[in-house]
């Protein structure tokens, strides 16, 4: 059989359709000729004459070509006819990606590094600010605070915390509940620390919350066992009931299913357990145990501001309306009870995020901005990768263009490829975000997670991930696709310029992130090196969980602790021991005082502590004026006090503190207290780095309190002394355990937990950006060098020194990095100001220094990244390079 296929191929003019279609047509025409040939054979012709006959009667090839071209749908028309071509495109895209796995893995990883942190941050923000809370749709939940209008130290904000927000008195709570019309429910709670004691385990000190019946139910928490408090349990005499958190129930009570009805002891009093909460976000609350709150408190007056007040608005009532009503009520109460209520307003605030201080809130949004920058940087990298790959696929594009593919078709195909790439990267990113969320939640300081909604990957977060993936895929796939599909001669040069401008943008973005992270890290560093006013080395602290019935008479308190401190002090290796009424670096309760001879109104406030005489020595407190307490400060001797420098600065207007006297509130022995010493400020606040508060210390012997935190200064490792200290305690009271044993260094570490977390998160994201930016500049420089191998070869052949070649490449890279730095400088300065204002409410020291450091780090890393291609360029063998072409 003659080769009709070859014959047709030889004669038929090009049809201007896809190659595969043309081959089919040739095959079909050849088959037709073959049939004619076979018919002639059947008619009795010899093969030769049959061939002659068929070819002679064959078509006029040029005309047939023209007619076929007219009949076949053009490439452009076929697109119109088949809009659902994308399935093919996607299949093709997968084939192309499989063909270069290194490229695919690299690009998918880079995309995932952008999408992952974004999805994680969005999940956090969604859970905290937007996700429905258990009470959603039934009326807004609000917290009501008393607001001081100019009482001494209670003013302004510190670290973004509003210090004018004050707890509410029992009287105000009752009045608000009676008069407020905007609310459908009211609840009050009070936090305190008690000693938990049950038969089976050692006593421990735990924070608890007492609340009026209905509080947990109002917040939407459910019970796993038993019930919430009954209304009658909020009345005096019936209040000895307790509810356990699921966490405490599992940890301390071994998840005992028969716990309801059993008894526990809190501060020596018996309480019967009535319920256990269901597991969930409630376990993120600090307090693991609740008791019923009664209207009248044993240890507080009607006017003491100790209650947290929570209320649910009626459906449809706004916070502004409730605020207006409460303003009117506060005005009436000030007239009715001028002594306690004049000068106090009411603040109605949303309950949601109330646990979240403004700094943490600012952090969430700033970090969202940070991860957006990371996403942009990673997308820029992907665009660069796509461009570089465009170089490798130039031949393919040329072939496809010559086979009739239009530019639009090429763009569509390339765009599909980048979308497929982004979809894979997005999926990997979502997986990564799950890991990021888990890691961050694990590293988050205790009890910092929301108490009403879980922080997890949710449907909205997944939708968000899909949306940003799609947007990034289109935005960053389009430009390279357009560049690559362009068929003009200047394509290469243009693409290089485009890639370079991407690198500049990348460095500018990275500088912004580094500026923010630099500031956060710098502040963290400053705080870890802050003068706390005490020495934290070689100090161990602990509490003895005494119960209320431990001291039947208050006269027995002071001898107990004196004995305890004496025994501990006698241990070899112990340098000193003391006791303070408030734990190390904990914020003290604030009490009003008056300076003798000064007006009593408005009342002035200061943090109040009781300390034994060894306190100054144990903690290495530095005295500025006068003397510390001594063993001669007895109840019967002159009443004395120590104050800090901040107190002197705030209240004494430059007068000599050592001639002034104070009077303190009623619960203490009445009378004037002479200031005998002034000590250097101690960082006694929940947040290290906060400005110091005015403080008053009084001697323990004159004001014996039941609960004292003990501290021991040791010569050697403080943690190693615990056993000896416990033995000393047992020699005084064989039953008495040690609670909450921690070294001072540990406490400082815990106190800096949030700063550390902040530094870690910002540092991680900025580090990620830095790595991505360096990978970006490396990629572009390596690509440019590979393109210029021949040029470099010529230069070397003509006698250029290797170091000059290196300098050339390095210089080019550094020009890009430097340009990025210049572009980013303004933005970085602005970012620095925003971060400082949002997180530290102030100018941060050493801003300029930080900027110089991060700029240098960025430039240095950029140079390192360029050094590899530069070395490669310098190592080019001119013979090989020239033979290459």
């Amino acid at each position: 059989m003659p080769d009709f296929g070859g014959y047709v191929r030889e004669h038929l003019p090009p049809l201007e359709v896809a190659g595969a279609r043309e081959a089919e047509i040739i095959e079909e025409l050849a088959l037709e000729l073959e049939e004619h040939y076979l018919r002639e054979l059947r008619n009795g012709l010899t093969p030769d004459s049959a061939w002659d006959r068929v070819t002679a009667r064959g078509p006029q090839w040029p005309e047939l070509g023209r007619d076929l071209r007219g009949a076949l749908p053009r490439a452009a028309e076929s697109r119109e006819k088949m809009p659902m071509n994308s399935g093919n495109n996607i299949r093709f895209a997968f084939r192309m990606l499989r063909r270069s796995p290194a490229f695919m893995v690299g690009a998918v990883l880079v995309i995932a590094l952008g999408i992952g942190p974004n999805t994680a941050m969005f999940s956090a923000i969604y859970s905290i600010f937007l996700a429905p809370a258990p009470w959603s749709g039934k009326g807004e939940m609000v917290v009501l605070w008393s607001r001081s209008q100019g009482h001494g130290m209670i003013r302004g904000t510190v670290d973004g915390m509003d210090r004018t927000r004050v707890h509410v008195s029992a009287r105000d709570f009752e009045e608000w509940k009676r008069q407020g019309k905007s609310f459908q429910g009211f609840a009050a709670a009070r936090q305190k620390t008690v000693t938990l004691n049950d038969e089976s385990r050692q006593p421990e000190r735990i924070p608890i919350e007492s609340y009026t019946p209905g509080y947990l139910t109002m917040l939407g928490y459910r019970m796993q066992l038993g019930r919430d408090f009954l209304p009658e349990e909020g009345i005096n005499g019936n209040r000895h009931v307790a509810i356990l958190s699921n966490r405490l129930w599992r940890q301390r009570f071994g998840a005992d299913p028969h716990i309801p009805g059993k008894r526990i002891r809190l501060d020596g009093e018996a309480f019967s357990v009535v319920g256990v909460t269901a597991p969930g976000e409630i376990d993120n609350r600090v307090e693991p145990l609740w008791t019923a709150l009664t209207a009248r408190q044993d240890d507080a007056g009607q006017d003491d501001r100790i209650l947290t007040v929570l209320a649910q608005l009626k459906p449809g009532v706004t916070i502004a309306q409730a605020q207006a009503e409460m303003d009117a009520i506060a005005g009436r109460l000030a007239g009715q009870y001028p002594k306690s209520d004049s000068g106090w307003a009411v603040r109605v605030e949303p309950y949601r995020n109330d646990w979240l201080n403004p700094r943490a809130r600012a952090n969430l949004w700033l970090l969202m901005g940070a991860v957006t920058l990371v996403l942009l940087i990673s997308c820029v990298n992907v665009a660069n990768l796509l461009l570089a790959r465009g170089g490798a696929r130039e031949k393919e594009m040329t072939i496809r263009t010559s086979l009739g593919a239009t530019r639009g078709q090429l763009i569509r195909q390339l765009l599909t490829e980048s979308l497929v790439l982004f979809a894979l990267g997005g999926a990997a990113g979502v997986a990564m975000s799950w890991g990021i969320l888990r890691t961050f939640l694990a590293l988050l300081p205790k009890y910092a997670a929301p108490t009403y909604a879980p922080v997890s990957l949710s449907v909205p977060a997944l939708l968000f991930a899909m949306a940003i993936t799609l947007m990034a895929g289109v935005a960053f796939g389009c430009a390279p696709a357009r560049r690559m599909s362009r068929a003009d001669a200047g394509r290469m040069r243009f693409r290089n310029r485009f890639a370079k401008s991407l690198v500049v943008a990348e460095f500018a973005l990275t500088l912004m992130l580094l500026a923010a992270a630099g500031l956060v890290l710098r502040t963290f560093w400053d705080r870890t090196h802050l003068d706390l006013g005490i020495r934290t080395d070689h100090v161990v602290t602990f509490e003895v969980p005494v119960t209320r019935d431990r001291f039947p008479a208050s006269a027995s308190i002071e001898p107990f602790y004196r004995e305890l401190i004496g025994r501990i002090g006698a241990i070899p290796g112990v340098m000193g021991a003391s006791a303070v009424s408030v734990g190390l670096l904990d914020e003290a309760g604030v009490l009003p005082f008056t300076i003798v001879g000064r007006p009593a109104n408005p009342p002035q406030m200061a943090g109040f502590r009781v300390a034994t005489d060894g306190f100054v020595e144990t903690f290495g407190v530095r005295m500025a004026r006068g003397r510390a307490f001594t063993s001669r400060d007895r109840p019967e001797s002159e009443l004395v006090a120590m104050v800090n420098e901040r107190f002197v600065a705030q209240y004494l207007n430059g007068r000599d503190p050592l001639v002034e006297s104070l009077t303190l509130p009623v619960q203490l022995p009445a009378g004037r207290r002479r200031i005998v010493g002034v000590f250097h400020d101690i960082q006694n606040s929940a947040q290290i780095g906060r400005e110091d508060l005015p403080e008053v210390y009084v001697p323990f012997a004159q004001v014996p309190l039941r609960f004292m935190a003990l501290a021991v200064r040791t010569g050697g490792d403080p943690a190693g002394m615990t056993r000896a200290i416990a033995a000393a305690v047992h020699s005084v009271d064989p039953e008495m355990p040690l609670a909450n044993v921690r070294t001072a260094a540990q406490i400082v570490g815990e106190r800096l937990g949030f700063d550390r977390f902040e530094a870690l998160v910002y540092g991680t994201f900025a580090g990620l950006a830095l790595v991505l930016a360096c990978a970006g500049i490396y990629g572009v420089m390596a690509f440019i060098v590979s393109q210029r191998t021949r040029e470099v070869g010529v230069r070397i052949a003509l006698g250029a020194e290797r170091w000059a070649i290196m300098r050339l490449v390095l210089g080019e890279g550094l020009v890009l990095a430097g340009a990025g730095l210049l572009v980013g400088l303004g933005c970085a300065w602005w970012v620095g100001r925003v971060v400082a204002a949002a997180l530290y409410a102030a100018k941060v020291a050493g801003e300029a220094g930080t900027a110089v450091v991060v700029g240098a780090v960025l430039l240095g890393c950029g140079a390192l990244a360029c050094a590899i291609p530069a070395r490669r360029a310098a190592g080019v063998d001119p013979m090989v390079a020239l033979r290459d072409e």
Partner: protein
Amino acid sequence: MAATDPDDNARKKGSAELLILAQLEGRPRHGYEIGVEIERRSGGEVSFQIASLYPILYRLEGKGLIAGKWVEEAGQRRRRYYKLTAAGRKTLAEQRRRWGSFTAALRRAGGIENA
């Protein structure tokens, strides 16, 4: 055969679509078979050469009136079989109606019946 007569050509081209569609009514056929069938049914009066058949086939396929598919039969070369689509079937009926009334009119007005 008056294959070079321009009038004849035009007439054939106008009716070609009808002729091809009609051959596919019963079952799918490949290109050569379509040509042979037309020649057979017309008693040798009408025949299509490669040059006229294939452009029309591809045009019909482009319009979606017929659909081509490669079919491999045991022991044979694969061939492209064309079958009528739903749209093709409709067009065939429509063209039959048009051509029917046209030829009827031709017969009457052209006095063909009396010739």
